[in-house]
Each structure stands twice: as structure tokens, then as C-alpha cells.
């Protein structure tokens, strides 16, 4: 090391010891993600969260910062997840007003879709030899990420994998929704919206809103109901159904 370096090193030691670095890194990565997303005309492939995760992961790997150290600083952002989950009550309350007596078909479709989501992901992953930690990450991945991570903690699977799989699911759903729903002949906007909300939560919901307001409202409702019912039923299913091994 040359004699001029220690000053910089001292600043670095100070910075990396405070939560500020992790906070600034997290917020600026997310900000960059949002800018790219808007530049890309809100294309679901340019998802701001996925971009932020990639940037932060790349930076902490490059500067050799252990994940635990990063999380120590970023936990202030993480802490707000619970509060944000409670705040989902507002869009759910507004969505309930739009139900107009469709509650029974919607609930039946939600239960069928939620069960399909878990069974197909866990089934395919096991068939192709994924290990137990990865399979655990699939249980709650169709549920909106803040709730999914709470569920993951309750059933002792990784909240991290659950969040990453949830974001990926959202992106895939938003990209594929048109082709899948055309293929099964779903025409009504409320049906299309609800299906993408159940399968691809928040990312699918913003896609639905960009296509048609009625689709968006029902997508938001699908996401909210899946969040609440998933939080109740997924832990019960993992505990009492022998086909799902408790991790």
C-alpha cells in the first residue's frame, strides 16, 4: 500500500462500520432500478427490485462486504416490511367494494390457483433434484413478497429464497400473462386481472393496471386475498399435509 492510501482507508473503515453505507447503497440501487424501469417504458423485464438486488449483490461481492454486515445496516429498511404489510389493508378494503357478489367464484379460483402454485413448483423442483432448502423457497412464492417472507419465517424456510423466487415469479407472470390467458380463453378483464394477481402478486398487478383498470382492481384483490389466505393456509398445509415436508 502506498503512503497516501491510509487516509482513504480510514474513511472506508469508518463508513463500512456505520449503517449509512448499506442504507445509501440500498436506496441508490433501488433508485437506479426505478430510473431504468421508467426508461424502459415500465417493461416488466426491467423490474426495479430485480435491478436493485443485482446491483447491491454485485457491489457487496466486489467490496468484499459480508452479507451479515450489509444486513446490519440495511435492517432499518427491512424493518418496515411489517408496517407495509399492515398498510396493504387499504387496497384490500377498496378492492372488496368492487367484489359485486363474485366472492364465491373468486375464492374457489384463488384456492385452486394457490394450491396449483405450490404443488407445481414443489413437484417440478423435486422431480429435477433441487435440495430441500430451495424447495422450501417455493412454498410462498406466489404470495406478495412482504407477506411471503413472514410466512417463510413461520414455516422455517429461507425468507431470502422466498423473496427472490417471488420477484422472479412476478416478472415471469407479468411477461407471460397475455399468452397464457389467451391460450385458456379467459376473456373478461376481471377474470384476467384476478388470475395474474393470484399468480404474480404485485408485479402482475402493476402489469394488469397498465392494461385495463378493471383488470388492475381485480389483480390487486387477487394479490391481497392470496396474501391473507396464504398466510393462514400455507403454514397449516406445511404442518399437516405429509406431502409437503416441513423443512
Amino acid at each position, binding site marked *: 500500500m502506498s503512503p497516501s492510501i491510509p487516509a482513504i482507508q480510514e474513511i472506508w473503515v469508518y463508513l463500512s462500520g456505520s449503517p449509512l453505507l448499506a442504507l445509501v447503497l440500498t436506496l441508490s440501487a433501488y433508485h437506479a432500478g426505478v430510473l431504468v424501469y421508467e426508461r424502459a417504458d415500465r417493461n416488466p423485464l426491467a423490474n426495479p427490485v430485480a435491478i436493485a438486488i443485482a446491483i447491491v449483490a454485485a457491489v457487496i461481492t466486489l467490496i468484499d462486504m459480508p452479507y451479515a454486515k450489509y444486513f446490519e445496516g440495511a435492517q432499518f429498511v427491512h424493518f418496515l416490511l411489517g408496517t407495509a*404489510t*399492515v398498510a396493504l389493508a387499504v387496497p384490500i378494503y377498496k378492492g372488496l367494494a368492487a367484489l359485486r357478489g363474485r366472492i364465491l367464484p373468486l375464492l374457489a379460483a384463488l384456492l385452486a390457483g394457490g394450491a396449483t402454485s405450490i404443488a407445481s413448483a414443489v413437484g417440478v423442483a423435486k422431480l429435477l433434484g433441487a435440495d430441500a432448502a430451495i424447495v422450501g423457497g417455493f412454498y410462498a412464492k406466489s404470495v406478495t413478497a412482504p407477506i411471503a417472507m413472514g410466512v417463510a419465517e413461520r414455516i422455517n424456510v429461507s425468507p431470502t429464497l422466498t423473496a427472490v423466487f417471488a420477484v422472479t415469479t412476478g416478472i415471469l407472470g407479468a411477461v407471460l400473462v397475455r399468452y397464457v390467458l389467451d391460450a385458456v380463453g379467459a376473456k373478461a378483464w376481471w377474470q384476467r386481472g384476478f388470475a395474474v394477481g393470484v399468480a404474480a402478486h404485485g408485479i402482475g398487478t402493476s402489469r394488469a393496471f397498465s392494461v385495463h383498470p378493471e383488470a388492475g382492481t381485480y389483480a390487486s384483490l387477487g394479490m391481497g386475498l392470496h396474501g391473507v389466505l396464504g398466510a393462514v393456509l400455507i403454514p397449516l398445509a406445511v404442518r399437516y399435509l405429509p406431502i409437503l415436508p416441513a423443512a
Partner: protein
Amino acid sequence: MIAGLVQILLFQGIGEIVAKFFLPLIPGPVIGLVLLVAWLQVRGKVPESVDFVATAFSQHLGLLFVPAAVGVVMFWPSIRSHAVAVVAALLASVVATMAVTALVLRALAKDDGGAPE
């Protein structure tokens, strides 16, 4: 804004307490969410301050799960060695979920809500 935040935090607190003592299987914030929906139903409208905070959260919900998701760096070797299984499971599952949900709705719903224009 502060009034809205206080109410939401209050419901989060109640949810955490109920979860701790009565419903350990359900995440506390989800219980808080359900109680807040019930309270909004009783009131019949969303207070402006609560609406403001909820909108702010929902616009930047994604930011809040970045810290936990970055932990994927620790799973990287495992994900890479099972990459095919992970990608296949995610793809198959999201396609099947959308298809099944839409098909059940089509089968059960009497009104069609109008075809897309």
C-alpha cells in the same frame, strides 16, 4: 401523515401481540392487516392520513424486500447447481397457476363481464 402512521403501527402492534399469544402460526403483520380491514369496514371509509401512508408504502413496497433478497448471494452456489430445476419450477408454476385460476373463474362465473375490446 403521522396520524396515519400511528394507526398503522398500532394495528401492527396488536397483530404482533395476537400472533405471539394466540396464533403463533400466522405472521403478526397479517393479523394486523385483517384487523385493519375490519376496522375500515366498521368506519365505512379510509381516513385520509391512513390512505396517504398506505399509498406511499405500496408505491415503494419493492424497496423494502431488497435487503433480505440480497442474501441470495449466500445461496448462489446452490442455485447455480440446481439452475434448471429452479427455472423450470418457476416457469411451470406461474403458467399453471394463471391457467388454473382463470379456468376455474370461467367455469364458475355466470356473467362474462364483457370481452376485451
